[in-house]
């Protein structure tokens, strides 16, 4: 088990390294001279020698490998450089924004997990019944509705028609509700299907026949025998969905006029602010790598078959 954890950690470090190379290369290989771009942004394009001055300033004339090493060294120390567009410190910006996105994704993950487990279980418990059809309907529609449309509908229903919660902006816990629902609909739909289908398959397996022969109730069999068997699949799917929710933050934050990482990344892309794109991309990739690592280790901890197989290897 320790050995597997070690291998998996090693793998993650390699992936992190690759992610950093990709992020660095993307910006280096971007078309157009960055120095000219910065000069343009600062409105100094006319002044002679200014472009060269910027080249000097950001080290454009050094060899690539040295530039990568410099950049990586700074990044590891938490220095992502300065936004070309605004001149702000990128890490200061990120610090201001990362909690918003973190809370958004974490809250969305909680909503999606609870909703999907409850809905999937109910659906599988009375298969073919009205609740099952409702759950499957939700799974289909929820997985097919684009997040931006979900957001628009949620705002329309709760904020415009019912006037229950503020539509946009940020004041207090109430303003979290709509964004959480918006990011959670798609994962809840996909995951409830995972639970529903997984439980149905598990309920058809031989060990469930054994459990039935013990005289256990259907609820108990489903909860104690079938559910633990789908945990590994579920955790895997949840990991993927958490990644997708991070992407959904890019849509949801502008929709609710929030300033989080998604919004930051989007603006970076819009205004081709390479330092911001690079920093956000690196953070997103790091997050995915960490989520994947956590998922794999959790799956191993919950599935005794894999636990033995991997630690024995």
């Amino acid at each position: 088990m320790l050995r597997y954890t070690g291998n998996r950690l090693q793998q993650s470090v390699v992936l992190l390294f690759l992610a950093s190379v990709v992020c660095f290369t993307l910006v280096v290989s971007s078309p157009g001279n960055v120095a000219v771009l910065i000069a343009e942004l600062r409105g100094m394009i006319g002044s002679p020698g200014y472009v060269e001055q910027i080249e000097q300033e950001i080290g454009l004339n050094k060899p690539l490998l040295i530039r990568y090493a410099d950049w990586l060294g700074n990044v590891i120390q938490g220095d992502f450089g300065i936004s070309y567009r605004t001149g702000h410190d990128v890490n200061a910006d990120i610090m201001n924004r990362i909690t918003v996105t973190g809370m958004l994704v974490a809250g969305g993950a909680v909503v999606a997990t609870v909703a999907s487990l409850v809905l999937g279980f109910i659906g599988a418990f009375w298969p073919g019944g009205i609740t099952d059809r409702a759950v499957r309907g939700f799974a289909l529609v929820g997985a097919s509705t684009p997040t931006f449309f979900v957001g628009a509908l949620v705002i329309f229903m709760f904020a415009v028609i019912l006037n229950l919660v503020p539509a946009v902006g940020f004041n207090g816990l109430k303003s979290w509700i709509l964004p959480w629902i918006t990011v959670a609909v798609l994962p809840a739909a996909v995951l409830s299907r995972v639970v529903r289908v997984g439980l149905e398959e598990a309920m058809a397996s031989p060990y469930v026949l054994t459990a039935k022969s013990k005289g256990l109730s259907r609820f108990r069999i489903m909860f104690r025998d079938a559910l633990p068997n789908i945990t590994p699949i579920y955790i895997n799917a949840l990991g993927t969905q958490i990644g997708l929710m991070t992407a959904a933050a890019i849509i949801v934050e502008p929709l609710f006029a929030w300033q989080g990482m998604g919004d930051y990344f989007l603006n970076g892309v819009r205004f081709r602010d390479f330092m911001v794109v690079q920093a956000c991309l690196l953070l997103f990739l790091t997050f995915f790598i960490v989520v994947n690592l956590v998922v794999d280790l959790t799956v191993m901890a919950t599935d005794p078959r894999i636990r033995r197989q991997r630690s024995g290897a």
Partner: protein
Amino acid sequence: MRPLVSLVTWLKGLPRITVVTVSLFLFFGIFGPWIAPMDPSAQDLSLMGQGPSATHWLGTDHLGRDTLSRLMVAANTSLTSVGMVLAIAMTIGITMGTIAGYCRGWVEDLLMRLVDVGLSIPSLIISLAVIGIVGPGYWSMVFALALAWWPMSARISRAVAVSIMNKPHIEALRVLGASPLRIYFNHLLPGTIGSVMVYATADAGMAAIAVATLSFLGLGIQPPTPEWGQMLVDALPYLESDPRQVILPGLALTAAVIGFNTLGETIALNRVPKRLSRRQLLTRRMEVAGWHKETSDAA
């Protein structure tokens, strides 16, 4: 004739919702620009934000443009973009997948590791990163989405290619001295393309969402070309006064995606036996009712 018959029987086996929504999407996607009753970009500020009327069946938007016409033309925009994205993605994916399936060994390991990494990053983030570098625009959107989409088809085509390569007739061809190129182009590639296309079609719904999302963010299809995501974001400031303009394009897109997603579910294997419907149960009961029940023991 026979492929046509089998196509019809296949279509009959599909859920009705799939057939209706997908064929509507394809119909408007192909003929939208010709059958749209009005010019989708003809503005008439005197008709701003009107409700349904005899001339404008679904009303007009905030610039007085006919919503129905815009929805129809947007289907065309969506279909062409999705088609292009999938075509490019499949070309890359099938090439990579078949090469991996043909070569095996370290080439396969390397390519599939790349695919795994690609699949673990949300497509929106990949495509935004690409757009961030090359700048927004129609072609950079298509290119960016294709780049985010190819790992999916690569994974499927590798699986198909491996199963083809393991078939005895390929082994026989090798023994008979067929050249690797001949095996690749005459046997492996044609066999893979067919099955990958079926799966990729089921993925078209997600690609349509991706196109609409980028357009919603202002980084995909640019005005005045109508597109559902972009229509929705255009109308968003008027959500309170004219919600129809937000809801209609959203519904159109969702309906199309539901069609493709149900198609995908039908294609995917279902290992659990289907539960009897009430009507099936009745038919079976009638069948059984005709069977004799007699005492098997003599006195």
